[in-house]
């Protein structure tokens, strides 16, 4: 008998003569306590994300490319990993071209195996879109994709994320109702830069992932 059959048989035997319990799920318990007025959503998300060391900038759909360049220049960063095929990637590339920006845009356009060393050692910052935001917990929903692979929001020390205000949901339950179906190979909730409190409960940022997270919150209402 395989381990699988042994385990399943034993569990089934223990349940003999019983019925599965009814589904107790009550959406109001996870939804109602965490509802906000539209204008509160932005305030709450910003407040919570700032409290865990993220930078949140309110900006507009015209102004954000300039803001990216300014924020990077302030940090003396001259390279940025960005997906050239996405709408926001194209917008940023256009802006940089028109402004003759010194910022060098890098693309994640080959399998990781071909440039792992470079990604780990020579990419100071990345820029990605987001699927949604969550006001209740100050969270970004990020879906890695062929254009913006998993490691893009993880390996570079600075991660800049673009979030549209119209895509902020009140809470996780509501956000979940809009997730892609079937589930993508990887889906992430990101609520700040990487951190740890494993030594004496002292909070330290930049444990293994990005040391800094900047959220550009685009007012698209």
């Amino acid at each position, binding site marked *: 008998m395989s*381990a699988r059959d042994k*385990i*399943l048989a*034993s*569990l089934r035997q*223990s349940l003999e003569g019983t*019925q*599965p*319990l*009814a*589904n*107790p*799920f009550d*959406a109001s*318990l*996870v939804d109602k*306590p965490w509802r906000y007025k539209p204008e509160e959503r932005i305030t709450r998300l910003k407040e*919570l994300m700032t409290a865990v060391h993220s930078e949140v900038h309110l900006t507009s759909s015209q102004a954000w490319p300039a803001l990216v360049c300014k924020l990077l220049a302030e940090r003396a960063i001259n390279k940025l990993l960005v997906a050239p095929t996405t709408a926001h990637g194209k917008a940023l590339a256009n802006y940089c071209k028109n402004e003759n920006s010194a910022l060098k845009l890098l693309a994640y356009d080959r*399998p*990781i195996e071909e440039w792992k060393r470079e990604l780990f050692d020579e990419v100071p910052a990345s820029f990605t879109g987001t699927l949604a935001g969550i006001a*209740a*917990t*100050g*969270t970004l929903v990020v879906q*890695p*994709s*062929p254009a913006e*692979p*998993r*490691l893009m929001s*993880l*390996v570079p020390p600075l991660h800049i994320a673009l979030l549209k205000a119209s895509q902020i949901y009140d809470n*996780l*339950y509501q956000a*979940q109702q809009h*997730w892609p179906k*079937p*589930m*993508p*190979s*990887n*889906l*992430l*909730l*990101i*609520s700040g830069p*990487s*951190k*740890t*409190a*494993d*030594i*004496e*409960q*002292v909070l*330290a940022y930049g*444990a*293994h*992932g*990005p040391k800094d997270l900047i959220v550009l919150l685009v007012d698209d209402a």
Partner: protein
Amino acid sequence: MSSQRIPTLDVTAQKLKSNARLSLKDQQLRTNMRSAMDSLISKRLISMPDEDERENLRELGNKIKARALSQLPDLLEQLESNLTKQGIQVHWASTTEEANAIVLNIAQARNAKQVIKGKSMVSEEMAMNEHLTEHGIEALESDMGEYIIQLDNEKPTHIIMPAIHKNAQQVGKLFESRLALPYTDDVDSLIQSARSILREKFFQADIGISGVNFAVAETGTLLLVENEGNGRMSTSVPPVHIAVTGIEKVVANLQDTVPLLSLLTRSALGQGITTYVNMISAPRQPDELDGPEEVHLVLLDNGRSQAFADSELRQTLNCIRCGACMNHCPVYTRIGGQAYGTVYPGPIGKIISPHLLGLENTPDHPSASSLCGACGEVCPVKIPIPALLRRLREENVKSPKQQPQIMAGQGSRYSAKERLLWKGWQYFNSQPLLYKTGTFLATRLGKFTPNKLGPWTQNHSAPKPAKHSLHELAKKHLEKKS
């Protein structure tokens, strides 16, 4: 105050009593534990200020887990079928030996030399690091706390904060001696040193290992929570990802994870959510540029189906591993996690370890509790831990031969002498004449009872019978009234 970790601590489950005695004398340990637990207790409370919200959610959490367990075999099959369809290979293991063999097979098939590990308590159950090392494969922990204790050849002292018993000076000295780094007790510098060492390890690793917080049957999704990013690194940088988990971690659908996540992160750390929630439903797809080519899930039983067989003990499997019961336990806070000698310490450890290891190997665990009830009160999925401890005490003193045998190692504290004594006590109390004579003599001759009564009087004052029995007092009282 500079007392070191007491070197004679024998970290095996049979040594709980002597370990507890030693740990109680370790002032540094007690200071570190007290301050950490106090802080975790207050953080939890601050994150759950609304009692109604908290209690309703705990009730829901309890019911979601109970429902999942009521259809566990079906959910496991559904999970397996969905994961397989999505390209994740599912393996089953009855024992930790089987689980280790599965992991080793995968590693050897890939000719793996280096394994990097995210945090996984199930891998601790398996002693996976030791097993891989024996076969010439380096297994390195990457969770900061786990990394620290691995450097010091220790076992986790807490399921969420493995190195919480050490302060920054102790970690600084450890890094100085083991990593040849200049001494510092600045936490930021210590973390940055570990980060740069471990980044290179993530880069090199052939395999990444992780645990699972919730396995969602309906969508075939492995959900992992963490703050550091090492879990994401372990599951997306190396070409192979192996997740190991207990069979009780499966939930029916995605929406079930909403209340459970909220309960987990607030109970554990007082956080509304962790920095990362990582949901994995498939390996790298043909059009994707990174992520593991192979993803494996190892489902481990290791005694869980024994707990499952008894409807009361089954509640042990509700556990979502938040650690709140430890943080609130007066025993755990004083002796630390290592004294228990088991992978899972504290209240939850005392009710789960007897299933994993057998009562004969954890004879003192069910009784190492004052039954104060704090653990049951804070448990986010309402496991009645004190009631289960009492139940295990019963199983522990049953005759080893009594049928049916519900637990391996049943009756490890059974004593024929004690059983006879209680039989006598029962007889004495059920025979009116004997009882009357007995109490008459006891109340009259009470002053002659000895002051020393063996082990009892080591911790208690000797019992002195009252001058009058309750019967006599009641009789007198009624006479007076009439």
